[in-house]
């Protein structure tokens, strides 16, 4: 290598400037994520007049009248309540249905296993919200139309592939030997599971439940198609985009963002573990 001698001599300077460039880009990319959120925060804690006027302040004035307007807006609080109910239902459904399958995939070799994995993976490659269209008709026949439970069923279809794959990777991380040891000590298959495996993976299960909650909380299209009177927050905001004043939109957007921030913080340890195995 001819260039190695020169680069050896000139090493300190490029390394220093490279270090600087590296830190600068990390900072810049962090700002790229945070600054838009900061702008939304300013708008949320400004009075409606400030929100609708030009120019904008660049420091939050901490005026709560926009949020008060949001809370008193006809139908907004019940939409917020609906969102929480649907998301909680989705959370419970996707874990209770998905976790057993994740366990089966990690512990057993059985015929049709690959076919089953294909079916689960296939759902991820589909524009799933589109399925809300025929389900709307089906729900009217069964009386599930415009109910939180009906929407939760559709959201569970969205969250289920993730629940199966995440629990699969969680269970795979726990050695079978632990269970086998419990069996030799007199546990049945079931008690070995509840006494040994369950306590170990409970935090991971909680993380994937939170993930299911966020998927449902954020979903717009199916929610807008399937609810009319009992709209969720996303469906309500979408329906009001055309007519609502700006301060209502921003306050609504802010309320949508807040749980996401908390949830991503709560599951951050598991975000990578679940994809590490899931993408093989």
């Amino acid at each position, binding site marked *: 290598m001819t260039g190695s001698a020169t680069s050896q001599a000139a090493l300190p300077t490029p390394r220093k400037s490279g270090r600087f460039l590296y830190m600068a880009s990390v900072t810049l990319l962090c700002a790229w994520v945070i600054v838009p959120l900061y702008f939304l925060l300013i708008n949320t804690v400004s009075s409606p007049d400030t929100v609708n006027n030009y120019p904008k302040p660049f420091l939050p004035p901490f005026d709560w009248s926009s949020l008060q307007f949001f809370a008193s807006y006809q139908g907004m609080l019940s939409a917020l309540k609906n969102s929480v109910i649907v998301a909680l239902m989705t959370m419970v459904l996707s874990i209770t249905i998905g976790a057993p399958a994740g366990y089966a995939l990690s512990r057993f070799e059985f015929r049709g296993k690959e076919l*089953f994995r294909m079916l689960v993976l296939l759902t991820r490659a589909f524009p799933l919200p589109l399925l809300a*269209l025929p389900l709307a008709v089906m729900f009217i026949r069964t009386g599930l139309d415009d109910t939180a439970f009906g929407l939760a069923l559709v959201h569970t279809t969205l969250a289920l592939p993730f629940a199966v794959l995440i629990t699969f990777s969680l269970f795979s991380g726990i050695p079978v030997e632990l269970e086998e040891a419990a069996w030799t000590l007199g546990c049945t298959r079931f008690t070995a599971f509840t006494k040994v495996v369950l306590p170990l993976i409970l935090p991971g299960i909680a993380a994937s439940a939170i993930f299911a909650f966020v998927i449902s909380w*954020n979903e717009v299209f199916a929610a807008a198609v399937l609810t009319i009177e009992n709209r969720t927050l996303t469906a309500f905001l979408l329906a009001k*985009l055309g007519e609502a004043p700006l301060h209502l*939109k921003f306050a609504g957007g802010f309320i949508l963002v807040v749980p996401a921030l908390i949830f991503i913080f709560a599951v951050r340890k598991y975000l990578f573990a679940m994809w*590490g195995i899931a993408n093989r």
Partner: protein
Amino acid sequence: MNPRLLPYILILPVTLFLIVFFLYPFALVAQEAFTAGGGLSLQNFREVVGYWKFPISLRNTLLLAAAVVPVQLALALLMATMVNRMNRGRDLVLYVWTIPLGISDLAAGIIWLAIFEQSGFLNSMMGGLGLIDRPANFLSYQHPMIVFTAIALAEIWRATAIMLVILVAGIGLIPKEYYEAAEVFGASPWQRFVKITLPLLRPSLQTALILRVVLAFEIFAVVAALGGTIFPVLMGEIYAYQFDLLNGGAAAALALIVLAISIAFTLIILRVLRVPKGATI
């Protein structure tokens, strides 16, 4: 209980659920799309494709995907390699970068509306710097390129995180010994990236790209918040068929077209980034 039956009992709930809420409605969409006037026909497809908005919304959707996905891929790769060599502050930086993962497309649209609307922060900044005399109405018919840019930026801002997570997980699976060996042989950081990271990252790249491309064709709420009717996209048209025009058959036909495009791109990505048989890390 027969232990051989146990795995089947455990996967039964998921299987039943997916049959009822995934395969069955899918069959219903297909049936509705191909039915018109009481018989089998392509009438719905002809109607949808012949509508003047179809070429525009198709072009807009594809253009957006073509503009957004490569930038996201490059950005996610850059962020993932940066995180990989980070020691202090790794957790904090990763948390900040993955925040958008939990943010819905509607909220992302509203966030970027705060920046681009007439009394918004972009205008305020430019006014403060003395670049403009009075605020411009960016999100209007007069500025189609700015509307497009705003939507693309909101999408890049929101959905790069999902690729980042998949790629960081994938890079974590690559053994450090490969890099050490490459360093011994004098490979530059760029060579290490091209010769080791990229090839071994192929399965993750595949997953990340498929997920992002499929989701890119589903773009809906960001556009509704920022572009409204100025910038029609396919999902928005499906919504309009279903609710404004009350034409379920046409909505179903258009849904199948979106699905066909998604599947076609999934197959292309699978083919281009295929992992050689028997090759594992």
